[in-house]
Each structure stands twice: as structure tokens, then as C-alpha cells.
């Protein structure tokens, strides 16, 4: 009897967690919270800029906890997103089970397209989990400054990165007058070594280098002008080991696939009939 009661209670909680009313309330709260977040970030950009580098746990212990007037919305955002993930999982799982049970009513093609919203729902959960995983578990070596000829060793490895030379592409022309003789494409030549393994790679903006599980991103460089002041050549790099990347990129791909399936179903099967309204 006690077991039956417990099952009933769990079933009730599951139903409530998967309720569409909860989805509506959460989405509206998220809209309001993010709007407030815009004001907070605008007023205290520096508080949030560090979130890019130091990871979520360290950020909460430092900037987050001590500036609650400006950061409270972020904690609320985390709570609301967690609830939304639970709500999405419960709701979608129920609907997927129902859909599988009623598969005889649809042709195979229509049946597959019916999964599109559920693919998007599961993809959103994967995406959010990937972000969380990324912000919690990423190992970041912030602003590693190097001059030509210097070498750094990756943490806990024998792998080394040597900054060999800086070969930027300068802009010459009248169309972008403000950029004349300035670097338009910074190109840093790196030598990646690990024991007998040797490889040369070019690091640039939007062109990271991946090596032994680490992503190497160009953050800044000098000099920026061809005939400007004599500034020593240097590059600043962010080196990150981020196991969450694969998860959220998988989420993006899955969500996009679900979205295209949803659009295809909507266009080809004319989902919007009078009855649907």
C-alpha cells in the first residue's frame, strides 16, 4: 500500500514537473530575468567579463557572491534554467512515449517528422548541460603572453608550444582608411612538440589551434601597425581544456536538425490547419 502511495505521489510530482503551465511561467520569468540581466551587465560589465576566463565556481566565490545587487539575476537564471531542463525532460519524455504508442496512426515519414519538437527539446537540455559542464570543468590558462622564441609546457604533460614567429597580413588601401598599414590578419607561427611529435600551426583570430586536448585562442597581439612605434612583438593567448565543448556543439547540431525537421513538417504536411488554432 505504501509503495502504491509513493508511486502515486511520484507520478503526481512527475506530472506537475512536466506541466505546460510550468513551462509558460518559467519562460516568462526567464524573459524578465534576462531583461534585468541586460541592465546589470551594462552597468557592471567588468563583473561579468571575468566569467569568460575564470570559470563558474571561481566566479561565484569571488565576483558573484560579493556583488549580489548586480549578480543575483544570474543565480536566478541558473535556477530557472535548471527547472526548465527538468520540466522539458518530463514533458518531452511523456509525449515521446505517447507518440511511440500511437505510431500506427502515422506513416513512417510523418512519424519521424513528429519527433522534431522532441529532438529540439532534448537538444536544448544537452546544450544547457554542455554550457554548465563547460563553465564548471574548463581548465583555463588566462592571457599567456609569449615573445618569439619562448616556449611553454602544457600542465601535466610533456607537450610544449613554441612561438616561432609573427607574420601578420597588413591592410593596404583606401577603402578602409582607418586600417591602412594596420594588421588585418594576425598570424602567429607555433611549433607544437610532444616527444618525437612535431607540428607547425598558424594561430590567428577566429582560427584557434587544437593540441593534446587543449584549445589555443589568440587574445591579443602587438604591434598592430606596420611603421608605428617600436613595440616588441608579442602575442597573448588563452589556453583552454574544455570538455563541455563537444557536448554543447552536439546540442547545437541536434537542435538545428530538429529545427529543420520541424520546418519541413510544417511546410510539407501543412501543420497549421484551422483545427490547430
Amino acid at each position, binding site marked *: 500500500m505504501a509503495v502504491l502511495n509513493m508511486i502515486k505521489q511520484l507520478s503526481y510530482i512527475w506530472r506537475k514537473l512536466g506541466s505546460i503551465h510550468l513551462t509558460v511561467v518559467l519562460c*516568462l520569468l526567464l524573459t524578465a530575468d534576462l531583461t534585468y540581466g541586460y541592465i546589470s551587465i551594462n552597468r557592471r560589465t567588468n563583473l561579468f567579463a571575468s566569467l569568460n576566463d575564470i570559470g563558474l565556481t571561481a566566479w561565484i566565490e569571488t565576483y558573484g557572491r560579493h556583488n549580489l545587487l548586480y549578480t543575483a539575476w544570474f543565480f536566478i537564471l541558473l535556477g530557472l534554467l535548471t527547472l526548465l531542463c527538468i520540466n522539458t525532460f518530463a514533458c518531452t519524455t511523456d509525449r515521446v512515449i505517447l507518440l511511440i504508442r500511437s505510431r500506427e496512426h502515422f506513416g513512417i515519414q510523418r512519424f519521424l517528422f513528429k519527433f522534431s519538437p522532441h529532438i529540439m527539446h532534448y537538444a536544448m537540455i544537452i546544450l544547457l548541460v554542455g554550457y554548465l559542464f563547460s563553465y564548471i570543468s574548463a581548465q583555463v590558462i588566462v592571457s599567456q603572453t609569449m615573445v618569439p622564441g619562448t616556449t611553454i609546457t602544457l600542465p601535466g604533460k610533456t607537450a610544449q608550444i613554441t612561438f616561432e614567429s609573427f607574420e601578420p597580413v597588413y591592410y593596404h588601401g583606401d577603402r578602409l582608411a582607418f586600417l591602412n598599414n594596420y594588421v588585418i590578419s594576425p598570424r602567429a607561427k607555433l611549433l607544437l612538440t610532444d616527444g618525437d611529435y612535431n607540428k607547425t600551426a598558424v594561430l590567428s583570430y577566429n582560427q584557434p589551434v587544437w593540441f593534446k586536448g587543449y584549445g589555443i*585562442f589568440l587574445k591579443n597581439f602587438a604591434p598592430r601597425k606596420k611603421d608605428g612605434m617600436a613595440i616588441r612583438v608579442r602575442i597573448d593567448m588563452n589556453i583552454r581544456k574544455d570538455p563541455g565543448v563537444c557536448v554543447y556543439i552536439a546540442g547545437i547540431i541536434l537542435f538545428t536538425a530538429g529545427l529543420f525537421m520541424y520546418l519541413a513538417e510544417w511546410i510539407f504536411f501543412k501543420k497549421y490547419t484551422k483545427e*490547430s488554432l
Partner: protein
Amino acid sequence: MISAQILFKTAAVFYGLSLVSALVFRKKPITVLIFMLAALAANAASLTLRYLAAWPMLPMYLGPVALPFCLGILSIFNKKNYENNTVFRLILFLILFLSLTAVFFPKDFYMPFIKSKTVLSHLFLLFGVTGKSCFLTGSAWAIAGFIGSKRKQGKNETRKSIIGILTYRIIPVLQSRYFLQCSMRWIVWGFSLLTLSMFSGELWSYIGWGTPVVWDDAAITTTMAIWFFYICLLHLHHTGTWTPQARGCYAASGVFLILGLNSIPDLGPFRWPF
């Protein structure tokens, strides 16, 4: 030499003339179309000049100039939008409002940055602007559904809930579900394009900075707010949780969110344009 700013001001004048022509005459005169085409040509030239001044980088704060253009294209090249007078006038009104805010509060003085030299940044802008144009068009259809309603409120349409009181007793009754149907079509397209814009932005953010979200830019929160707002509407629509009247009100209110969260962050200081 003619500048992008002058061309955009010219476009704003033609958008205004087009709206006046559409409002004065009951049946759409040919001048509406002529003024609109002239405005679109000037707007397109302004966009081209701004792009040429930045390419291969992304011009900064191009949204306020690109959004009226996208809306203009949707208003005259989509048969349903063009043929429905109320919707067309509403879209024209939105275009003029956006154009005037861009003329009086320009933010086009920022130089492009070389990290934006990637196809992902251009996709981010393109999908974002077209997505928001679709949302605004969807809102115009929803608002049009409430304008000139001749339907009387039936007993069974009055609800005792707060949403029922707000949407049935205060706001006029939705004249036809057809308007909501058209509105939702645009909103679905808007949601799809905004999602693609966000994903392009996230991938750009990853290859450029190494993180999925760059927290230095507050605009990410407004985009996410708009996304969740329309996720809510799509859920309401697909599950039929609220009545068509309430959903119509919700879809119509999206215009304030888009204008508030999209226009305000892109506004610069007041500048007298002449």
C-alpha cells in the same frame, strides 16, 4: 560624395511618404509602391556603403539600418502582407519608427573590429535581423486582428481568470483566427532564424574567444530574452493552452519586446540629423 547617413535619411523620408500615402487613400495608390521602392533602394545603398566601409569585417550596429530594410522587403514582396491594408500600414508605421530612431539616435560611429572577420559574424547579423523582422511582421498581423473588430463578445468567451478578464474585457475581440494563423507563421520563421543567429553567434564566440558566451556584451541577454518569450508563445500555440484571443494578445505584445530589447541597446546619443 554621398554618404551612407544621407542615403538612410533619404530612405526614412520615402518611408514616411509611403506611410502618408497609405493612410490618406482608402485603396492603396501606386505612389505607396513607388515611395516604398525608392526608400528600399536608398536603404539598400546605405547598407551597401556601410558594408563596403567595413568588409570583410562586420559593420558595427548595423541592425537599426538593416531592420527597416528587411521589414520593407517583407511588406511589399509578400503578397499577404501587401494586400492587407491594416497589416501593411502597421508594418510601414514600424519601419518609420525604426528609421527615425536610427536617424535621431545613431550609433554608427564605432569602427569594426578584426575579430568579426568571419562568415559566422555575418550570418549572426543576417539571421538575427531577418528573424526580428519576421517577429515584428507576426506582431503586426496579431495587432491587425484586433483592429476594426466587429464581433461581439459572447458569453462563453468571457473567462473568469486574470488572462480572460484582461484579454476579453479590456482588449477588443480577435476578429478572425486567420490573423492569428498568419501571425504564427511569421513567428515560427522568426524563431527559426533567431535560433540560427544565436547558434552562429555561439560558434563565433567559441572560435574567437574560446567560450560559448562572451559576457562582455550585454546584447546576449536581450537576444535570449526574446528567444524565451517566443518559445513560450510557440508552446501556448501548439498545446492550445490559452484561448486564441489570449494568444493573439501575447503575439501582439511581442512588438514592444522587440522594439524595447532590440532598439534601445542599439541607440546612440541624440544627434540632430540636419
